[in-house]
């Protein structure tokens, strides 16, 4: 279990309970269960309190938690017949973006998502979930495929943002992102997006211009990272708490702003505490959203999607 800085008191209590039980295992006849159970209860209460009202900055920390389920975990658990399709047919395969065919409740769909990796090796392979132009161009290709064969598109968003690299710029990541957003807007099939962790700037929006945009309870979605915003507007990257607050990047604020359509609740203590329950909840939410969209004509799906984005922001936080 990886603890976040604000979970330190929790780590102490859970650590103590664990120590007691370890002691009891070594010393037969020693009864610690009552004491340990009391600690468990205390820990549970503390966890509840900590997560009841997370500050925006703490949400950022939770959204980036290394133990949170990632794109690959959702694909493995929710979809059957997962058949990854690779490459942009132009330059490379981008492992920061997973994409392919799969079935959700037996119905074929195209799945696209950012994958951050789970250890040093896979994180480097996946470029920490930061797509290069090839990632967007692969997604464009797969969205076109979905469109031609009438398959709904499901995207899972979890990226710090586009990759600020030399090659990424040389190979036109601006154009790739713009084209990907445009492709989302043209889809004549249902498109559902779930922001499962970090929705970082243009790298996120390129796959998130959907009919339904859902967000996990503690996920974040922002035009810039709080650190980046702090260093520009406060001239001090350490002011990320203030920036996180001001940016309104939580699922709750985005719901008020009308930028997202629904919030998927997380288990107490965040998705990392009960990965299976989180994945199941996300699966149900995707199924529900796709159900609502099924039967709509291509024209209607395109028109609704455009209207949705054109109307966005008209009423501010009162939406």
């Amino acid at each position, binding site marked *: 279990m990886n603890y976040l800085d604000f979970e330190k008191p929790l780590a102490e209590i859970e650590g103590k309970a664990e120590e007691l039980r370890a002691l009891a295992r070594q010393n037969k006849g020693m009864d610690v269960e009552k004491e340990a159970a009391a600690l468990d209860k205390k820990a549970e209460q503390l966890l509840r309190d900590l997560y009841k009202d997370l500050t925006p900055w703490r949400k950022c920390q939770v959204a980036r938690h290394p133990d949170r389920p990632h794109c690959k975990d959702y694909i493995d658990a929710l979809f059957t017949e997962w058949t990854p399709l690779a490459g942009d047919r132009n330059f490379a395969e981008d492992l920061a973006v997973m994409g392919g065919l799969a079935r959700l409740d037996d119905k074929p769909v195209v799945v696209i998502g950012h994958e951050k990796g789970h250890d040093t090796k896979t994180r480097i392979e996946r470029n920490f979930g930061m797509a290069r132009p090839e990632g967007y161009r692969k997604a464009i290709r797969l969205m076109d495929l979905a469109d031609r064969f009438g398959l709904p598109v499901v995207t899972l968003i979890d990226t710090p943002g*586009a*990759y*600020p*690299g*030399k090659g*990424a*710029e*040389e*190979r*036109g*990541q*601006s*154009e790739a*992102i*713009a*084209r990907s*957003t*445009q492709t*989302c*807007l*043209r889809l004549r099939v249902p498109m559902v997006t779930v922001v499962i962790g970090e929705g970082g*700037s*243009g790298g996120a*929006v*390129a796959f998130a*211009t959907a009919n339904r945009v859902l967000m996990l309870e503690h996920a974040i*979605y*922002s*035009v*810039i990272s709080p650190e980046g*915003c702090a260093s*520009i*507007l*406060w001239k001090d990257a350490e002011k990320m708490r*203030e*920036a996180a607050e*001001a*940016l*309104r*990047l939580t699922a709750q604020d*985005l719901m008020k*702003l009308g*930028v997202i359509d629904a919030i998927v609740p997380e288990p107490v203590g965040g998705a990392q505490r009960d990965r299976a329950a989180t994945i199941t909840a996300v699966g149900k939410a995707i199924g529900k959203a796709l159900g609502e969209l099924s039967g709509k004509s291509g024209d209607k799906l395109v028109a609704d999607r*455009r209207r949705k*984005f*054109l109307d*966005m*922001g*008209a*009423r*501010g*936080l009162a939406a």
Partner: protein
Amino acid sequence: MNWISNYVRPTINSLFSRRETPENLWTKCPECGTMLFHRELKDNLNVCTSCDHHMPIRPRARFERLFDGGIFTEVPVPAPIPDPLGFRDQKKYPDRMKAAQKATAEKEAMLVAEGEMGRTPIVAAAQDFDFMAGSMGMYVGNAMVAAAERAVQKKRPLIVFTAAGGARMQEGILSLMQMPRTTVAVEMLKEARLPYITVLTHPTTGGVTASYAMLGDVQIAEPQALICFAGPRVIEQTIREKLPEGFQRAEYLLDHGMLDRVTHRKKLREELILITRMLMRATPPVAGDLPAPPPSAAPAAPAAGTAPA
């Protein structure tokens, strides 16, 4: 349109502008250091007369030289709700807005206009780098949508001059949502089969580049313009190496296939007339299309199609 509206009004306008005495009559070229007299610089479209360095040009000044006789009508842009997030950093967003409005005498960071360019009816939009670095928030999104709607309604091409230092962070996620919103605007034009031409000026960065700037049917940049998604400083910090000379400049992007053309500001109007007329399948532009003004009128703007402007 007769010569009175074409020539007299701009002359009057220029008389008025002549009356203002700017505090600073001289501008130093940031590239070559030459001191340039303000009128000379203005007549040269803010391009250094000594080294051709393109300095920023405000939307109104650009439109005065883009549209025939300097005549254009502003297309109204619906005002978004102010300060949608109640944003406050070291300053309150409404205070930053007020300061920007006072400093620029403009409402916001984009101006939309319609009129004729070489007798070709067009709609044009230009981003104002002087207004909070041309940053894209709800207003710029609304301006792009208004421009596209007007172009579609009147079956005219849309020409957009981009310039942006980045997102309007004070509008948070709503500034990010302008990427899809402005893309919807572009889609309106594509669907109506109307030319959508982008002119990328220095600097065009961030979400603007990664949305409407890079979706043009034809994409032209001004010389030496910085055009990127992530800025050079961010990249250098990430890869920890120095970037090559000219990286992310217009000429570099042209070499890498990201642009159709790099065009000197003084040649731009002429080129835009040729391109829009061909795409609209209109007749070739006729030089001297307009009746010559009487010598006494002393036109401030050159006749359409006869002089590069």
